């Protein structure tokens, strides 16, 4: 019997159709991957199954969970269904748990609400479930609060409460997107194991083709609120009948064309030597000053003219802190940073403007990188503040025009406000802003991480092209190994504030030396590898 069958589902919110023509089925013990870019309707599909659609929504069609027709169930019946027949896991483990209640309490709640079990029984089931998801009693007693746990651990708690009553259907909405790759691998393994052992059906929603490719038995690709293609995973990837499937696939595996090798021997564009960055920790005791937290620990590296260097590491490894230090936004506790041979430091009034103009930055968040009150013209020309005689009049227009066309926008965009642009376009504007004073080096701090794969591919192409044309160096900071691999010449692997390995990108990824690098490479889901592996 199928645990989930959806046919002809249509959802609209305040009259806008967000889902249409959705047909899906899922059998026990199987994994159904739902893939799509943001706004494709993946999450809405999950919420339809949970019947937790936002207010003002209407749905039609048929949804059956373990044979029961949701359209004829009232709210009390739905409440009985949720948590008992269907469990759900969310994207953000940091906020998915109630911060003021213990983990045991929250897992036990699922049990108590549905079974009327006593407090003790419920807690013993909760204990069992937490053990099951890899949170053993000795380290994770029931009276722990969510804030005591890391993101991955919290996600395990969420899983524990979703499977506490062994539901027939488990829905996981981007369960690993907010996690580091190594943690992601563990959580995916756990889910897979649970599905097999408990004979549940898992509906796994993700934007990452590589994740589903290695996990899902069947797959549905969504775009603009509709399923464009569905079927067995291998079948889909082999045939790639639908153009969108093809596009998605190519974008995911995209490697921009990069011809030229960097020259070496000259003065490096950026020289980082023995840089140390400490943070003062908050006092726990009134009289004892806590030791400082060392976020960056004696890091040294160089970037040559025209070279693209990647900096990879998981969250908290110190890569963003290092980036801030390199940009002279924070002071250093040791070592020095040189740009074109000149000391680049935040001491005093900061670096000389002319020197500062040699290095620019592009941030991760395309929405937070711009002052929403300024026109693009003003946004992209902000770095001219660093120039003694900034261009005016026609010259200024020419420079704006050039910067915008350089990044694939048109000169008419200069008079628009930032809210009129999509995420990808905003990253282009961010790049234009960095380019406009013709720097030698651009620091790209997770610059493509927030973008959908197809957009990401375009931006990577743009960056590769610019680097080549304008002889630019990049420091490309990312947690995403595949992206770094696609665009950099050399890579630095960072862990706990130190560079544990560095070398030619291809060499490092093919033949990682440091155990940590090995672990990272192994944990990174790979589309190629998944498709190459024999079916299980």
């Amino acid at each position, binding site marked *: 019997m199928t645990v989930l069958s959806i046919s002809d589902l249509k959802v609209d919110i305040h009259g806008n159709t967000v889902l249409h023509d959705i047909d899906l089925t899922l059998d026990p013990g199987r994994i159904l991957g739902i893939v799509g870019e943001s706004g494709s309707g993946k999450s809405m599909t999950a919420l339809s199954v949970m019947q937790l659609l936002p207010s003002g929504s209407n749905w039609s069609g048929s949804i059956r969970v373990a044979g029961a027709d949701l359209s004829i169930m009232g709210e009390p019946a739905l409440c009985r269904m949720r948590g008992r027949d269907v469990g759900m896991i969310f994207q953000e483990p940091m*906020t998915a748990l109630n*911060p003021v209640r213990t983990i045991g309490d929250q897992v036990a709640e699922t049990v108590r609400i549905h079974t009327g079990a006593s407090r003790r029984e419920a807690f013993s089931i909760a204990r069992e479930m937490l053990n099951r998801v890899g949170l053993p009693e000795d380290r994770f007693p029931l009276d722990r609060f969510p804030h005591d746990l890391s993101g991955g651990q919290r996600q395990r708690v969420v899983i524990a409460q979703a499977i506490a009553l062994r539901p027939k259907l488990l829905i996981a909405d981007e369960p690993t997107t907010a996690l580091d790759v190594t943690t992601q691998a563990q959580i995916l393994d756990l889910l897979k194991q649970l599905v097999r052992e408990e004979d549940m059906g898992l509906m796994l929603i993700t934007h990452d083709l590589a994740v589903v490719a290695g996990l899902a038995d069947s797959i549905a690709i969504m775009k603009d609120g509709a399923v464009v293609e569905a079927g067995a995973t291998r079948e889909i990837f082999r045939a790639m009948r639908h153009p969108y499937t093809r596009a998605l696939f190519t974008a995911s595996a995209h490697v921009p064309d990069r011809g030229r090798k960097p020259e070496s021997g000259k003065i490096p564009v950026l020289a980082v030597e023995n840089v140390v960055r400490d943070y003062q920790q908050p006092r726990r005791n009134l009289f004892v000053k806590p030791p400082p937290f060392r976020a960056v620990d004696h890091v040294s590296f160089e970037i040559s003219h025209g070279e693209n260097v990647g900096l990879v590491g998981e969250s908290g490894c110190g890569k963003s802190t290092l980036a801030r230090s390199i940009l002279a936004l924070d002071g250093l506790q040791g070592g020095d940073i040189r740009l074109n041979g000149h000391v680049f430091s935040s001491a005093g009034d900061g670096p000389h403007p002319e020197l500062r103009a040699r290095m620019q930055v592009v941030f991760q968040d395309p929405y937070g990188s711009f002052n929403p009150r300024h026109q693009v013209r003003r946004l992209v020309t902000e770095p001219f503040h660093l120039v003694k005689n900034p261009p005016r009049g026609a010259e200024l227009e020419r420079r704006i025009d050039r910067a915008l066309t350089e990044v694939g926008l048109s000169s008419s965009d200069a008079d628009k406000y930032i809210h009129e642009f999509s995420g990808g376009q905003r990253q282009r504007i961010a790049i234009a802003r960095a380019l406009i004073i013709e720097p030698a080096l651009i620091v790209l701090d997770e610059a493509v991480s927030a973008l959908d794969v197809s957009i990401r591919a375009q931006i990577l192409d743009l960056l590769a092209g610019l680097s080549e044309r304008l002889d630019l160096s990049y420091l490309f900071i990312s947690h995403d190994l595949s992206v770094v691999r696609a665009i950099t010449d050399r890579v630095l692997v960072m862990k706990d504030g130190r560079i544990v390995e560095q070398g030619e990108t291809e060499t490092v990824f093919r033949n990682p030396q440091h155990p940590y690098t090995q672990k990272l490479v192994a944990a990174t889901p790979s589309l190629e590898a998944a498709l190459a592996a024999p079916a299980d």
Partner: protein
Amino acid sequence: MTAYLLRRLLSLSLSLVAASLVIFLVMEVVPGDPASFMMGLNADPQAVAALRSQLGLDEPLPLRYIGWVAGLLQGDFGISYTYRVPVSELIAERVVISLPLTLYALALSTLIAFPAGILAASRRNSAADLTVMGATQLGVAIPNFWFAMILVLIFAVNLRWFSAGGFPGWEAGFWPAIKALTLPAIALALPQASILARVMRSSLIDTLNEDFMRTARAKGLSRGQALWRHALRNALIPVLTIIGLQFSFLLAGGIIIENVFYLPGLGRLAFQAITQRDLIVVRSVVILLVFAVIVVTFLVDLAYAAADPRLRRRRS
């Protein structure tokens, strides 16, 4: 967390010291000589001078400040210029009215605000929500002294359900005393309840939008269950701050209401003392109120820690 509270305590004590200095200096520049006020229109200048030295008003400034603070630390607030009794006695007599009144008003305000705020938040944009919000808008806009006047007109003068004011004393029995505090408490509570209901509502709405509320619903909790079990305690945290602020505000802010109902409370004591230039009473009351505010702030910090386990980290 202990360190956090200790640091709070230290900075609060510093505030207290700074406050005492400010109060003392402000009182020094207040025009009006208490001695000549006490002696009246036809007073003999010699008698006034005699009184000044009797009151210790002719000592140098720093000496008087130190003397005052040293006295405060020992619980000795000095002798009232006008009443000629220890200030601590005066304050004690007034606190037994102001404090119960404050708590009464606070209790009323909470009792009105919580259900109203919860109702409005859980039925957002419904008729009930609009009614509650409209009523609270009005409640915030009504000056409490005007409301008090209207209450007296209706309930004391016309209906004669309550006495128009005054306080029979706790020795007259619990209920008569509570009855005497009822109209003043209502007048004080109305705007506070309105503010609190609004805070409760918006805090609850924020919490209802949190991810963990969706998790709770996904577990099979009904809307009501999710609200009671998961939203309320989280929503309470900002509400606590407001309750703390209101406590301090009510303790001192009853001045006008105490006047309308001629209740011999702290605010009225301070107001009277200002007009009579009984400076020692004024500054003692003000420092006491500042102290109360600081203590309440600290208690709210503690309550925070109780409500929010994130603040009582055990991992060191």
